[in-house]
């Protein structure tokens, strides 16, 4: 009895560890996905107009393009003000006001999807009255590349770990069943039905799985929310802010919980099966 209890505790904590690790990478993947969305939602194309361009004709050209999510007109005066504000020295730029203003009028355009940006920029360059188009080509390309790479890596790792966790759990349960192999044999010989033999193992597996994944999700949740609330008020640029909406996260935690539960049950079923098999004619 005591030995079984101890074994069950070991199993539960192993399940907890495996599921927690799996969960860490799932959360990482979700966050990288979020970063990708942030980037997509924040790439702006700056469309600089010629000094004498017809603002309205450019505007209707922009309206005519598909894939535009949002656009704003920024007059050269507004541009100068914004610029001054960014640099934090307002009065420094008063000298540049009026005729001295070196900035052109411009539109800021956002696309529905970050991947549309390059094509959109090309299209805008061809519009009459547009002098230059800029969207920080390198930055966007790099960010997208990196996040895509990270996302696929984290997903791959979490799939890999998820599989590993499954094998681990099944293995541990198998060890625990192996330790009771003799008992199963005796039960079988005493004429116990297969379900009578299986039931305690399934209950044990389910309990251990649930316990383990409960520990995992609770501690993972605690650490994650602690961490993100600190980062949220921190210095990370907006693009890298972590996902914190409970609505987006609870399916993950629920999934982890159910995963442990079902792995416990499936592991038990698989492990017991071997010892329930009756002999064939050859053996």
């Amino acid at each position: 009895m005591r030995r079984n209890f101890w074994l069950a505790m070991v199993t539960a904590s192993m399940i907890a560890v495996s599921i927690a690790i799996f969960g860490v990478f799932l959360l990482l993947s979700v966050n990288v996905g979020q970063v990708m969305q942030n980037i997509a939602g924040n790439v702006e194309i700056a469309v600089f107009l010629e000094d004498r361009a017809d603002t309205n004709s450019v505007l209707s050209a922009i309206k005519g393009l598909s894939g535009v999510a949002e656009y704003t007109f920024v007059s050269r005066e507004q541009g100068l003000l914004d610029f001054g504000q960014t640099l934090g020295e307002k009065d420094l730029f008063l000298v540049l006001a009026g005729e001295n203003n070196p900035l052109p009028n411009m539109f800021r355009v956002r696309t529905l999807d970050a991947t549309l940006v390059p094509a959109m920029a090309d299209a805008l360059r061809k519009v009459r009255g547009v002098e230059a188009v800029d969207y920080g080509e390198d930055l966007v390309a790099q960010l997208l590349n990196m996040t895509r790479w990270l996302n696929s890596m984290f997903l791959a790792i979490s799939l890999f770990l998820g599989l590993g966790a499954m094998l681990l759990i099944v293995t541990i349960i198998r060890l625990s069943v192996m330790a009771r192999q003799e008992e199963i044999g005796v039960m079988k010989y005493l004429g116990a039905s297969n379900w009578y033999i299986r039931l305690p193992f399934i209950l044990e597996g389910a309990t251990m799985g649930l316990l383990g994944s409960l520990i995992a999700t609770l501690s993972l949740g605690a650490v994650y929310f602690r961490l993100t609330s600190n980062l949220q008020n921190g210095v990370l640029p907006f693009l890298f802010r972590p996902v914190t909406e409970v609505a987006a996260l609870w399916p993950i935690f629920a999934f982890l919980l159910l995963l442990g539960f079902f792995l416990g049950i499936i592991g038990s079923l698989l492990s017991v099966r071997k010892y329930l098999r009756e002999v064939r004619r050859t053996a």
Partner: protein
Amino acid sequence: MIEFVEVTKQYPGSKVPALNNVSLQIQRGEFVFLVGSSGAGKSTMLRLLFREYLPSSGNILFLGRDSAKMRPRELLKHRRRIGMVFQDFRLLKQKTVFENVAFALEVVGRSPQEIRLEVPIALAEVGLLDRAKAFPGELSGGEQQRVGIARAIVRKPTIILADEPTGNVDPENAWQLMELFTQINRTGTTVIIATHASDVVDRLRKRVIALEKGRIVRDEKRGVYGYES
């Protein structure tokens, strides 16, 4: 009740068969001793009867039903009809003596009341009522063997298969146990015992089936252990 039809059992990897073309019939209510030297095939025969193994060739019939054709439910029913005493006891180390015997009843869904009633009776019959709370590891060899017997008889089976049930027990105890088996046999239970206890066999004068190298060499209604008599 039981019929062996040209049964051969060859264990995988061994060259000589453990049972070689054995045919026999055992009627309901018979009392049979299975004798033969070490390795003759006695345990193999009991294990085939218990359907722990299937024969390599030939057929074993229980009440006309081929053991190889038993479906899972039938197999359960079959095993529940049998009280088996294993040569190596097969007690559960983590259960007490009482729990080990009770287990045979629990497994077939008997009520706790019944268990509380039947288990002490069985334990008393093998003389172990005072060791009920001990674990198998705390018992002497003979005591463990008697727990195995109590577990086999507690369900009042229709067939008792006992493999060397008195090997670890002193002659006096052996006699008491054989007395118990004959008594159970008198109530109509078929009893088949593999044994080396020559004096018991010689004195009881029951049916004796003698095996030698997997073959039946003798089958006598009121037989003895050796050839001498």
